[in-house]
């Protein structure tokens, strides 16, 4: 059992079996190997919370929430830290940047997806070879962006 006092979720208690292990960490946080995914089924945005540092969490989502036809080309060598994996076994997560003052302008790092094995729960952040994917791709379409902007501004006013 892992107990963690997290900045975002308060006291968290999860099974060791829920941990997703990044054998080589992720760039910028190489020393953080154990992470858990926290979220619910109603929001495409979920949290990758460090199991070792309560203050460290990254918002992530699945590729389809950003780009329906996302198809990252990842060289086999980039996945070596987590070993062989079938296509069905692979889960892809995309790191989101969500500006605190303008959450509707959130961007997705399609260039560097996180690839996780569902069976081994090992994961790695890799580079997609696709030239068309950037580090800061817009996430929301115009309608959704406007809706979230209005919600955010209304919430701001209500305070």
């Amino acid at each position, binding site marked *: 059992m892992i107990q963690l006092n997290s900045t975002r979720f308060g006291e968290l208690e999860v099974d060791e079996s829920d941990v997703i292990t990044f*054998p080589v960490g992720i760039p910028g946080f190489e020393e953080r190997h154990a992470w858990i995914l926290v979220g619910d089924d109603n929001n495409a945005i979920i949290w990758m919370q460090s199991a070792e540092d309560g203050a460290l969490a990254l918002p992530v989502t699945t590729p389809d*929430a950003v780009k329906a036809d996302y198809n990252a080309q990842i060289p086999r060598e980039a996945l070596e830290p987590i070993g062989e994996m079938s296509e069905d076994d692979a889960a892809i997560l995309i790191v989101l940047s*969500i500006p605190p003052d303008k959450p509707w302008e959130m961007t997705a790092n399609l260039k560097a997806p996180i690839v996780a094995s569902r069976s081994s729960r090992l994961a790695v952040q890799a580079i997609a070879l696709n030239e068309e994917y950037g580090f800061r791709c817009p996430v929301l379409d115009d309608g959704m962006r406007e809706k979230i902007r209005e919600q955010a501004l209304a919430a701001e006013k209500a305070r």
Partner: protein
Amino acid sequence: MLVLSRKPGEALRIGDDVEITVVEVKGDMVRLGIQAPRTVQVWRKELWEAIVAENQKAAEEALTAKIPAIPASGGVSDLLAKKKK
């Protein structure tokens, strides 16, 4: 910084498990072959720096950002932690 000269086909050894071979030199481009244990990730430096910057920015913003709800597909629900508290 240590600077060494090498010819195509020659190699360098770093520690006891990393080997870098000069494969080809063509104009201003050098092709390198790298052999390293699978726990050593090899990145093009500018890409690595860009990802570090993005990850750190995402983590920093996340401390104060209010996260909006966007429609979910539940594609990774099997990877979510089951909260006890």
